[in-house]
């Protein structure tokens, strides 16, 4: 290479390198949630299991008639889960310290980096700037991977529909309320304000403040602050979260962290395998008349019997 070309190359290379100065955003490894994302703080010490939230959700989302009236408390005999007819349910748990049994409202937690969204191969889920994780039924194929991926077992499927089954889950009343800055129906109707609506960042501060002011009332933990990368629906509890049905083994990493290793490996294989196997082919078949091998063996072995 001529000296001039070498110097030219260095100059161009140096210029290119200086242009691509990595900005701070390149270094960020986690998503803390959109800055204006809303959330709900669920204070299970205030809930009395009146099920008004279930009724409000049912009416707001135009869900079918329930199996049992909403003021019927016999449903607490067993633990329920969300279904295609019920985007939210309240369950009663046992208090091992002899105090009143705690109740917990269960619904989509609207995670910052949801497993459902990550696993959907038609991008049917969206985490909106307001914090809601919403679902587009128009592209859903019905593979139900989101139901497998949700660590809280929230999405339900409308199996009863023969021709247009879709996923059913809480959408934070996005289309009717959250988009316009209004709180979801369940929050609005709760008579004891067990559900507090506000900016997620503010709710976390508020939750910690509640714990600080009345430490005997709460376990010092806001469930959902860090779990699985953070969720928009946060929980306060008098007893350990495990005892009110909140899985404490989920860890603080979003679901996608488990999959990133494999996903990162994919383009590597796509790049390396062709060269690797073409190379092996060349090594294995050098000097061997590979072309002839495709012809009928009978030609080579004619007359042999």
């Amino acid at each position, binding site marked *: 290479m001529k000296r001039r070309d070498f110097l030219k190359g260095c100059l161009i290379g140096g210029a290119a390198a200086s242009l691509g100065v990595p900005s701070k955003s390149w270094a960020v490894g986690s998503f803390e949630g959109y800055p204006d994302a809303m959330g709900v703080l669920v204070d299970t010490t*205030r809930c009395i299991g*009146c099920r*008004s939230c279930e*009724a*409000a959700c*049912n*009416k707001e989302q135009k869900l079918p*008639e*329930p*199996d*049992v*009236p*909403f*003021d*019927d408390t016999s449903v607490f005999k067993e633990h329920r*889960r969300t279904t295609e007819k019920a985007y939210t349910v309240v369950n009663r748990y046992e208090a091992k310290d002899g105090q009143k049994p705690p109740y917990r409202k269960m619904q989509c937690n609207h995670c910052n980096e949801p497993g459902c969204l990550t696993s959907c191969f038609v991008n049917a889920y969206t985490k909106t700037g307001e914090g809601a994780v919403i679902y587009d039924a128009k592209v859903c194929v019905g593979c139900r991977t989101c139901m497998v991926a949700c660590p809280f077992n929230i999405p339900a499927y409308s*199996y009863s529909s023969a021709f247009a089954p879709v996923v059913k889950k809480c959408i934070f009343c996005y289309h009717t309320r959250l988009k*316009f*800055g*209004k*709180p979801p129906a369940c*929050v*609005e109707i*709760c*008579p*004891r*304000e067990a559900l*507090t*609506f*506000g*900016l997620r960042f*503010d709710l976390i501060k*508020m939750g910690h*403040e*509640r714990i600080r*002011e009345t430490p005997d009332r709460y376990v010092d933990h806001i469930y959902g602050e860090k779990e699985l990368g953070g969720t928009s629906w946060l929980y306060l509890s008098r007893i350990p979260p495990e005892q009110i049905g909140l899985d404490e083994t989920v860890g603080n990493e979003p679901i996608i962290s488990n999959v990133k290793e494999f996903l990162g490996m994919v383009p590597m294989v796509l790049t390396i395998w062709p060269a690797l196997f073409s190379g092996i082919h060349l090594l294995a078949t050098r000097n061997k008349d590979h072309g002839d091998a495709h012809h009928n063996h009978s030609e080579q072995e004619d007359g042999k019997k």
Partner: protein
Amino acid sequence: MQKRGFWLAGLMVILFLASVPGTSRGITVPDNVTLHSQSKLYEPFNFPHAKHILLVKECSYCHHHTTGTLEQDPNCIRCHRNSSETKVVSCRGCHQSDPFSAVAIKEKNKKIYHLDKPSLKAAMHRNCIDCHEKMKKGPIACQACHVYTKAGAAFYNTGEFAPKNKPAKGGHGGH
């Protein structure tokens, strides 16, 4: 000498009268309050204020520090040591009915201390019912105060609106 004494007596009467609490001065204390903000779902019902005054006696027990004897809770005294009565004594004076509206959240003054103030509905339910539970007297259950309107019964799918076809347990209703 009589003229000065007269003015002194008059001043003392005025001062004496001024020190009498406002309630005794004749500001209206309702005997009964009709609660009807949930009028769509429930019939309005009566809150017997007079009865509670006789039972509870101390106004500040329900009305925090807006009236009655000053709150002695160390957590409150820190700031409210010298608080006097407020102009509006009822719950509505401090507790908003709509704390989560877009406007309320946007305009929330984050510098005040009482950021975590419950809404009017929550304040009343928690203040009233928690005391009833402690005293083991007074209505606790929802329907003990709230009688359903037709719309309310429909909302809760109860009473005449209760689901008629209860599907058999089993079949294909999965978990």
